[in-house]
């Protein structure tokens, strides 16, 4: 049995004991690099009753690409994101581009190659029973994801995504983002012009709690208004 396969299994077996996002990224990174992966991330693409607005929970990504992706609104035309909602099986960028060949989609795929220097990725859909759609994206250059490798990376990704989501609930989302997942959720709705009461209704929390999340985000970012806070988060790709 290949040593990198066993390393992936060992990661999955021990992942639930990890309590620190940095440690999670370090250990998962060690595993996936053995398969030729350069960048990796886990995203939440959508939750029930919410618009499709992917956000990065954890991983090591190219910040220039994250910024570009959100600034250009690529989520609306990204063939990878569209494919994510259609399958539970891992798929590659090439397979996604082949399924949905639009000019806008080709532009997204071209730009990700140009900016990140990676030319292929394995995308592992993670659908949970609460209706949330998430994914793990493993990209690299000159890497191929053969059929025997996919189940192994799928297994490790299930645990990477699961633990990242556990840790994100109430913790800062990434090293570069000081806000919690809940605060980002609230800011996302602020961008849509929602009031605290409306955000509370959407997220199933009280108006008071929604207000507190937004106020905490403003304090953390040292900004005066809720709109400033949401724009600040959006510009940095935290709301992609």
């Amino acid at each position: 049995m290949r040593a990198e396969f066993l390393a992936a299994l060992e990661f999955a077996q021990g992942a639930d004991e990890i309590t620190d996002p940095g440690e999670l990224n370090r250990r998962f990174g060690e595993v996936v690099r053995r398969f030729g992966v350069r960048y990796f991330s886990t995203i939440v693409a959508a939750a029930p009753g919410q618009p499709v607005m992917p956000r990065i929970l954890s991983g090591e990504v190219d910040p220039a690409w994250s910024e570009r992706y959100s600034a250009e609104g690529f989520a609306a035309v990204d063939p990878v994101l569209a494919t994510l909602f259609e399958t539970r099986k891992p798929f590659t960028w090439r397979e996604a581009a082949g399924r949905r060949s639009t000019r806008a989609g080709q532009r997204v795929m071209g730009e990700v190659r140009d900016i990140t220097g990676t030319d292929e990725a394995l995308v592992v859909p993670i659908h949970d029973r609460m209706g949330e759609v998430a994914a793990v994206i493993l990209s690299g250059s000159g890497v191929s994801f053969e059929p025997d490798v996919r189940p192994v990376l799928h297994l490790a990704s299930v645990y990477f995504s699961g633990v990242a989501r556990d840790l994100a609930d109430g913790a800062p989302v990434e090293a570069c983002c000081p806000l919690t997942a809940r605060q980002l959720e609230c800011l996302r709705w602020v961008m849509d012009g929602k009031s605290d009461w409306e955000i509370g209704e959407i997220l199933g929390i009280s108006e008071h709690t929604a207000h507190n999340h937004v106020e905490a985000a403003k304090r953390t970012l040292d900004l005066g208004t809720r709109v400033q806070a949401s724009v600040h988060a959006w510009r940095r790709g935290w709301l992609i």
Partner: protein
Amino acid sequence: MIHLINAANRHLYRDVLAQMHRARTDHFVEERGWRNLCVEAGQELDEYDNDQALYLVGFDEFGAIAVSARLLPADRGCVLSDHFPHLVVEGPACGPGVFELSRYFASPALRGRKHFPVKASMNLAVVEAMVERRARRLVGFTDLHILGIMRYSGWRVRPIGLPTAYDEGTAAAFEIACQADDLAEMQAAVELSGRQLFEAPAWLPHGSDVRALADVTSLVINLPAELRGPVLEVVSRTVRDWRPQGDLGPLFARLGERAAA
């Protein structure tokens, strides 16, 4: 409550078991497309549906099966060890004290966030059954995408082998933590207290209303501590009058003690 059906009380659940086997056909054969299963008269059955098998069944408010699973003592083998041994790197998948969880399904009507308590109750009942039988290990295998979902079910699920593609998907073997402290941890995690499992006494006659009995049991054992003693006394006396040869009092008392513990 979740009903545990065993060889001794099976006569009370004939219709339920037939309904369960039909639901297994709907779920595993029709919905998930498992082509190699044996279906007879609309009922999915395999060689492990024998006297050793324990079935856990939960009902919806209309009396239909909402959730169901099979627990198999794997002393001499189970589906995983007999048919998919290549999925297991970290054994054993069979032997004394090892149980296998299989044929778990929830009704499509239960999908979604608001029905989580029903499934959490079922998953707690699985671990309760294992703790009571002093299980050493609870193993099983499932599709990889379901493994991710299982992580949010309240169970502590750990893979025990490398996943492998099969006809209908990619399967991975797992074990579920099933010791007494795991049960306590799980109760806290899913915010469900009290006993979930109901095991109907074997002496009840065919045709007994086991669902009503389970409801009464649930009421009695989940009473506040100060009321439990007097109520148990009244119930025990009533049951003795009703059926002197089969006293339910000790059953309630035993369940009540467990709930209190």
